C-alpha cells in the first residue's frame, strides 16, 4: 500500500473526490469576510490560492499574490473547534403534559462523516486537548463524541507561520509529528503540488485511490528546507513549557493590574483559542408551556457570569479574570491534562481587539519577582 507520494496541484481535486466517494463532507480553508475560514469546500479552486495572512497583535490582514500555493498562510480565527464543540447547541428537550409530567429527551447532532482539509499542527494538538477534556474523563460529552467519530483529518504542514505564531516553543508545530500525529493524511506543499503521507489506516487506503507519483530527492530537500525555515521564522515564544512554578509565585504581581487596564474583558481570546472549553447552559421554554429546550453556548472566564454565585462574583474585575485565564491555561492544565493548554497558534494575540500578547505578558511576569 502506498503511504507516501507526490500529488500534482492540478490533481488536488482527486483527493476531494476520493473523500466524497468515501462518504465524507469536505470542509476546507477559504477566504471569507477577510479571513481564512473553514467552510464546505465545493472544489479545489475554492482553496485560498495565492493568499497570505499578515498577523500582528490585534491585527489580521490578507494579502494576495500570484504565488500558486494554496496553503501559504498560517491560520484564521477558527479551525476545528466549532466543528466539534459547537458555539451553541441543544443538549436536551423536555416536554410537559397538561398534568405537569415531564419527559426528557436527549438531542444529539446528526452523526456525519466530515473531512477537514488543511488542518495545522497546532490545530491537531488542540484537538487532542479537547479530546482529553470532552472524551477521556469520567464522562463523555455526547455531542462532541458524535461529531468526533466520523472526523477525517487532512493536515498540511505550515510553511509560512505568522508573526504571532509560537508553536515551536510549545512543541506543537509547525509540522505534524511523524508519529502519532493524530490525523489521517499529512501534506507538505511545494510549488507545483503536494507530498502526501498517510498517518492512519484510513489515510493509507485513501491515498491508494489517488495514483500518487514517487517523491523525488529534490522534493524531499525542498520540504526539509521549508520546514526548517518555518521553525526559524518564529520570533515569539513562551519561556518554558511548564509555567506552573513561575505563575504560582506571581499571583500578586503588579502586571495583572497593568494588563487589566488594557484588557477589554471581551472574551475574544478564549473564543478563538482552540483549546478553551468553557460553556454555559441555558433554557429556552416554548411560549405555550408545552416544552423547553436546554442548550449550551460558548462562555468565557472573562465574563461576569463565569464566576457568579448567588450574589457574589468571585472574579468581579478584569485583573482576576485575566489571571484566572492565564494561570489556568499555562498552569492548571498541566495538572488536569498533563500539559499546557496553549498550543502556540497565536490566535489570542491577533484576535485580541487591543492586541494583548500572551507571550509578552508571560515575559513581563517572568521578568521580576513581585
Amino acid at each position, binding site marked *: 500500500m502506498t503511504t507516501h507520494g507526490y500529488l500534482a496541484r492540478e490533481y488536488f481535486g482527486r483527493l476531494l473526490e476520493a473523500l466524497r466517494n468515501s462518504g465524507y463532507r469536505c470542509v476546507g480553508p477559504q477566504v471569507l469576510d*477577510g479571513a481564512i475560514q473553514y467552510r464546505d469546500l465545493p472544489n479545489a479552486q*475554492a*482553496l*485560498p490560492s495565492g493568499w497570505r495572512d499578515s498577523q500582528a497583535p490585534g491585527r489580521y490582514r490578507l494579502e494576495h499574490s500570484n504565488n500558486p500555493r494554496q496553503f501559504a498562510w498560517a491560520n484564521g480565527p477558527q479551525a476545528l473547534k466549532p466543528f466539534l464543540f459547537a458555539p451553541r447547541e441543544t443538549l436536551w428537550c423536555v416536554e410537559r403534559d397538561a398534568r405537569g409530567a415531564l419527559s426528557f429527551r436527549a438531542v444529539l447532532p446528526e452523526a456525519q462523516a466530515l473531512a477537514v482539509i488543511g488542518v495545522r499542527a497546532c490545530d491537531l494538538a488542540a484537538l487532542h486537548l479537547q479530546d482529553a477534556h470532552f472524551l477521556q474523563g469520567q464522562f463523555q460529552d455526547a455531542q462532541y463524541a458524535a461529531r468526533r467519530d466520523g472526523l477525517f483529518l487532512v493536515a498540511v504542514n505550515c510553511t509560512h507561520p505568522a508573526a504571532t505564531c509560537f508553536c515551536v516553543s510549545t512543541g506543537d508545530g509547525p509540522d505534524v509529528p511523524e508519529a502519532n500525529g493524530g490525523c489521517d493524511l499529512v501534506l507538505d506543499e511545494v510549488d507545483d503540488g503536494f507530498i502526501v503521507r498517510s498517518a492512519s489506516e484510513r489515510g493509507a487506503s485513501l491515498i491508494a485511490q489517488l495514483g500518487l507519483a514517487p517523491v523525488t530527492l529534490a522534493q524531499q530537500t525542498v520540504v526539509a528546507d521549508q520546514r526548517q525555515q518555518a521553525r526559524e521564522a518564529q520570533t515569539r515564544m513562551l519561556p518554558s513549557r511548564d509555567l506552573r512554578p513561575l505563575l504560582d509565585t506571581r499571583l500578586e504581581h503588579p502586571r495583572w493590574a497593568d494588563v487589566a487596564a488594557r484588557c477589554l474583558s471581551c472574551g475574544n481570546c478564549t473564543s478563538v483559542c482552540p483549546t478553551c472549553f468553557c460553556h454555559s447552559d441555558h433554557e429556552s421554554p416554548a411560549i405555550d408551556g408545552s416544552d423547553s429546550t436546554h442548550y449550551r453556548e460558548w462562555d468565557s472566564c472573562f465574563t461576569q457570569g463565569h464566576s457568579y454565585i448567588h450574589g457574589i462574583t468571585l472574579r468581579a474585575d478584569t485583573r482576576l479574570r485575566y489571571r484566572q485565564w492565564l494561570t489556568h491555561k499555562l498552569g492548571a492544565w498541566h495538572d488536569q491534562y498533563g500539559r499546557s493548554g496553549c498550543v502556540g497558534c497565536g490566535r489570542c494575540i491577533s484576535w485580541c481587539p487591543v492586541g494583548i500578547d500572551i507571550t509578552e505578558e508571560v515575559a513581563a511576569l517572568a521578568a521580576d519577582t513581585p
Partner: protein
Amino acid sequence: MSEQRRIDIRIPVLARVEGEGALDLSIRAGQIDALRLEIYEPPRLYEQFLIGRHAQDVIDMTARICGICPVAYQISAVQAFESIYGTEVTPWAEAMRRVFYCGEWLQSHALHIHLLAAPDFFGCTSVVELAQKDAEAVRRGLRLQALGNDLIALFGARSVHPVGVRVGGFHHAPSLSAVADMRARLNAARADAEALVRWTAKLPLPDDEQDFVSVAMRHPDEYAITRGRLVSSAGHDLAIEDYERHFQESHVPHSTALHAHLDGKPYLVGPLARINLNYTQLPAALRGLLGGLGIHFPSRNMFHSIVARAAEVWLAVDEAARLLGEYRVPGTPIGTPTGTPAVASTPRAGIGFGCSEAPRGILWHRYVTDAQGNVVEARIVPPTSQNQARMEEDLRISLTRFGLDRPEAELRLRGETVIRNYDPCISCATHFLRLRVARV
C-alpha cells in the same frame, strides 16, 4: 335630536395607531365648533442632535424616529448624503434598495391592515378579537408581515432599525442561498397577496367621496418607491430639491407636530395618493385583479386607502420576487474576500436632498454638511405631518356627513376609523420640529 345638543367628545388615547395622539371634538348647535387632532407625543428634536454627526450616524439615528418605517428614513437619508458626496451607487445596490424597501411596505401595510385598520370593519376592538372572527385572514396577515420583516432583515439584519445601509450601497450582500430561500417564500406568498386584495375589496368600507389633492413621487420606469419626481393631482411636477418652494409647514398650538400644506392647502400622501397618481404603472395583472373586483383608481373614496395598501402588498411581493430573480452577489469571484457591496465615497461639504415613498407617503430630507461631510443643518418632513391637515379636513367632512346627531359612541368610532384609515404614525410626526432660532 334637538339642534341645541352639545357634545364634547374626547378620545384621550387613540388606539391602534403608532404613537400617542388624541382627538378633541366639540359640536355646538349641530355644527363642529372645534376639532383638534392632538399629538402629544413629546418632541424628540432629532434634527437638532443630528448636527455634528457623520452620514452613518444619521442613517442609524434617523431610523430611530420610527420603528415602523426605519427603512424609509435610512433610504431618504442615505440618498441625501450620496447626492452631496457625488456617489453613484451601482444598479445592483439601487435594485436591492428597492427590494429592501418592498420589505418595509409589506411589513408596515400588513401590520396596518390587520392589526390596526381591519378590526373597525368587523366591529372588533383588536386583532385578538378579529382572530376569533376570521382566523385565516389574521394568520395570512401575520404571515405577510413576517415575510416583510424577513425581507428587511435579509438586507438589514433585523427589521426594526436595520443595520445594513451605508453610503455607497450596503454593508453586506445576502448570500445566494439566503436569497434563494427568500425568493421561494415570496413566490409562495403571491397567493396570500392576491387573497388579501380580494379580502380588502370585500370589506364593508364606508362610501365617502371627497375632494382632495394627492401627492406622490413618480418615476418614468417604475412604480415609484425609492426615487422619482414629486407630482400632484393638481398638476405639480417638481424635482425633490424644489419641495420647500411649494410645501409649507406650520405649527398649530394643539399639537407637537407640524402641519404641512401645498400652496396653502391640505393634501394627501400615502398609498391612495400613490395609486391615484401612478395607477398605470401597476403591473397589468394587478390592475386586472383590482378592476375585476370593481375597484377603480384614481378613487375619491378615502377608505379605498386600505385596498390601495393591499394592492401595494401585492406589488411589493411581486417586485421583490422579480428583482431577486436575477440576484447575484456583487464582486465576489470564488476565493476572493467578500468585497463590500458598496462603492467608495469621500465626504465633502454640500447640500443634499433625499426623498422616498415611506409606507405612509413621501418622506423628505435635506442636509447641509461641512467639509468633513458632517451635518450642519438637517430638515426632515415625515408623511404624517403632511397628512395631518388633510386628516382634520377629512374628519370635519366625514363626521358631518355621517351625521353629527348620531350617538356619541358612533361618532367616536367613526372619528377613530377615519383617523386610522390614514395609518398615522405619530412617532414620526413629532420628531421633526424645525428649529427656528429667533435672531435679534
